[in-house]
C-alpha cells in the first residue's frame, strides 16, 4: 500500500513554509531547537547512509566532525578566511581524510570496521591535544563566529538538514544507491553480479564524510568553541546511533523521527543532567523492545507503507 501523495505533499509544503519563515514569527528558543534538530538530522542521515544503506557500521563519525570543526576554526581565526569558506574547506578536509583512511579501514568488516573507525578518531583526538598549532587541549575560541546572527545560522542549518535528507533520497534513487543496498545485504553475492564493492563503499564513505564535515563546521561556528576531546569524542556517534536506531535504521524517515525524539528528550531531561544519559539509554532499550526495527521501520513493516520510498518498480 502506498499512501496517497496529496496529503503528504500539502503537509510537506506547510512544514517547509513554516520552517523557512521561522525567524519572522518564532522565538529564539524555538529557533535554537529547530537549528539543533537540523544539524543532528544531517549528521544522522549520513550515519544512516553508511550503516543503514552501505552496511558500514561506523563508530568514527567524530573524525569528520572534529576535522570539519577545526578547519573553519583554524582558517578563520589564524588566516582570516571567511567563515562559510572555512566550513566548505572543513567538508573537503573530512573528505580527504576519508579518502586516505578508506584503504586500511575497508580491509576490516563488521565489528572490526566499527572499532577501526573509532580508533582512528581517538588517534586524531590525541594528535590534536598534543599539537601546539591548534593550542593543545585548550582548544580554539572561534571569535569571528560571534558576528553570526541566529537567523544566519538557522538558515545554514536548515539547508543542511533538508539538503542531507534530500541527498540521501536522491542517492538511493540512482544506480549507486541500488548498488549500495546490494553490498549491504550480501557483499560476496554483490561481487558475483559484477559490483565493484570497494568503489561503491568508497563513494558512500566519501559522501558521508563530506556532509558530516560541513555540518560539523556549522555546529562549531554555532558553539564558538572547539576542543579536541569533545570534537573527536565518541559521544557524537553514540548520539547518532541513538537517533537512527530508535527512529529506524535503513529508512529515510527514521533519522527525522529519531532526531525529533532526541531533541525533545534532551529538553525534558535537561533538568536531570547527571542522569540524562541513563534515561536516554532506558528509552532506547524500551523502543528496541517494542519496535526492534525502530519506530519508522516497525511501522513500515506493520502497515507496509513508505512515504519517502526509494523502491523501484
Amino acid at each position, binding site marked *: 500500500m502506498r499512501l496517497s501523495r496529496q496529503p503528504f505533499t500539502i503537509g510537506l509544503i506547510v512544514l517547509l513554509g513554516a520552517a523557512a519563515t521561522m525567524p519572522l514569527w518564532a522565538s529564539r528558543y524555538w529557533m535554537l531547537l529547530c537549528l539543533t534538530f537540523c544539524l543532528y538530522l544531517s549528521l544522522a542521515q549520513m550515519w544512516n547512509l553508511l550503516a543503514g544503506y552501505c552496511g558500514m557500521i561506523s563508530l568514527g563519525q567524530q573524525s569528520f566532525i572534529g576535522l570539519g570543526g577545526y578547519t573553519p576554526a583554524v582558517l578563520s581565526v589564524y588566516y582570516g578566511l571567511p567563515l562559510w569558506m572555512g566550513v566548505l574547506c572543513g567538508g573537503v578536509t573530512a573528505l580527504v581524510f576519508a579518502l586516505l583512511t578508506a584503504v586500511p579501514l575497508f580491509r576490516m568488516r563488521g565489528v572490526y570496521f566499527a572499532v577501526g573507525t573509532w580508533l582512528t578518531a581517538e588517534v586524531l583526538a590525541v594528535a590534536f591535544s598534543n599539537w601546539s598549532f591548534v593550542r593543545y587541549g585548550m582548544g580554539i575560541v572561534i571569535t569571528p563566529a560571534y558576528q553570526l546572527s541566529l537567523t544566519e545560522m538557522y538558515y545554514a542549518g536548515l539547508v543542511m538538514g533538508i539538503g542531507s535528507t534530500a541527498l540521501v533520497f536522491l542517492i538511493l534513487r540512482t544506480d549507486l544507491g541500488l548498488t549500495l543496498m546490494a553490498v549491504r545485504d*550480501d557483499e560476496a*553475492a554483490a561481487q558475483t553480479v559484477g559490483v*565493484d564493492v570497494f568503489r561503491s563503499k568508497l563513494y558512500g564513505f566519501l559522501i558521508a564524510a563530506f556532509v558530516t564535515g560541513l555540518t560539523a563546521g556549522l555546529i562549531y561556528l554555532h558553539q564558538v568553541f572547539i576542543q579536541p576531546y569533545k570534537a573527536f569524542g565518541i559521544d557524537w556517534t553514540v548520539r547518532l546511533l541513538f537517533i537512527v536506531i530508535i527512529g529506524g535504521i535503513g529508512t529515510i524517515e527514521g533519522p527525522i523521527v529519531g532526531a525529533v525524539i532526541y531533541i525533545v528528550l534532551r529538553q525534558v531531561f535537561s533538568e536531570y543532567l547527571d542522569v540524562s544519559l541513563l534515561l536516554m539509554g532506558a528509552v532506547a532499550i524500551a523502543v528496541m523492545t517494542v519496535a526492534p526495527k525502530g519506530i519508522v521501520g516497525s511501522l513500515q513493516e506493520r502497515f507496509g507503507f513508505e512515504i519517502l520510498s526509494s523502491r523501484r518498480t
Partner: protein
Amino acid sequence: MGVRKRTQTDQTHMTERLSAHGLTLRFGRIRAVDDFSFSVKRGEILGIIGPNGAGKSTAFDLLSGSRKPDKGRVLFDGMDITHESPQRRCRLGIGRTHQVPRPFENMTVYENALVAAVNGGERSGRNARNDIHDLLDRFGLLSKKDVFARELSLVERKLLEIARCLATGPTLMLLDEPVAGVGGEDQDRIVRIVADVRDKGVTIVWIEHIITVMTEAVDRLLVMAQGRELIGGPPERVMNTREVLEAYLGPEGEQ
C-alpha cells in the same frame, strides 16, 4: 612457424569458452581442488557430478573468482583471468549461481535483477527495465516483482538466483545445484529454463547431485572425486563405468 602456432591456438579459443589448467587449492593440509583441468566449448552444457566434498563448489569459486587458486590458470575466451576479481569476471560474461540462493534479502525481486543488470551488465537502470520485466516473466516471477526477496519460497529463491545471474548478460553460466531441494514439477521447470538459456547461446557448467536430471540435460558429464576429474565423457558412457558406479552405489553397484 610462430604464426602458424598462434593460428592454431586462436582456433582452440574460438571453440573453447572456458578452460582450467591444473587448478589447485589447499585448505590447510587438505587439497580441496587438486590439479584439476577441464574445458567447456561454446554452447555446450557440461555437467559436473561427484560425491560430497569432491571439490565441485570450490572449483566454481576458483572459476568465478571468489577464491584464488594456489596453482593453475583459468582461461576465458582465450584470455587468462586467473588474477581477475569476481566483479571483473562477471562483467566479462561469467555468471554464477550459489548452491544456497543468496538474494539481496531486503531488496525486491525486481531490484535484485536490476542491480545485476546495472553492475554486471553495465547497463543504465532506465533502459534495462523492459528486459528485466521480460526476464522475470520468463521465470514466472513477474507477479512477485515488488516482493522482498526475504519473503520468497525456496523455489522462487532458486529461480531468482538464476534470473539475477542472467540479468548480468553472461555468455557462460556456472550453475551450482539449481534444482537441488526442489520438487518434481518445479525441477522440470528449471531444467526447461536452463535448456532455453542454452538455446540462446549461453554456455553452461552445471553441478548437480540428481543423476537422472544430469544424464538427460547435459551434453557431457564430468565426475569429480577428491578435487580432480575422475572420468569424463558422454553421460550414458560415464554413468556405466565401474568407478562411477562404485563411487555412487558402492562396490556392489555392478550387480
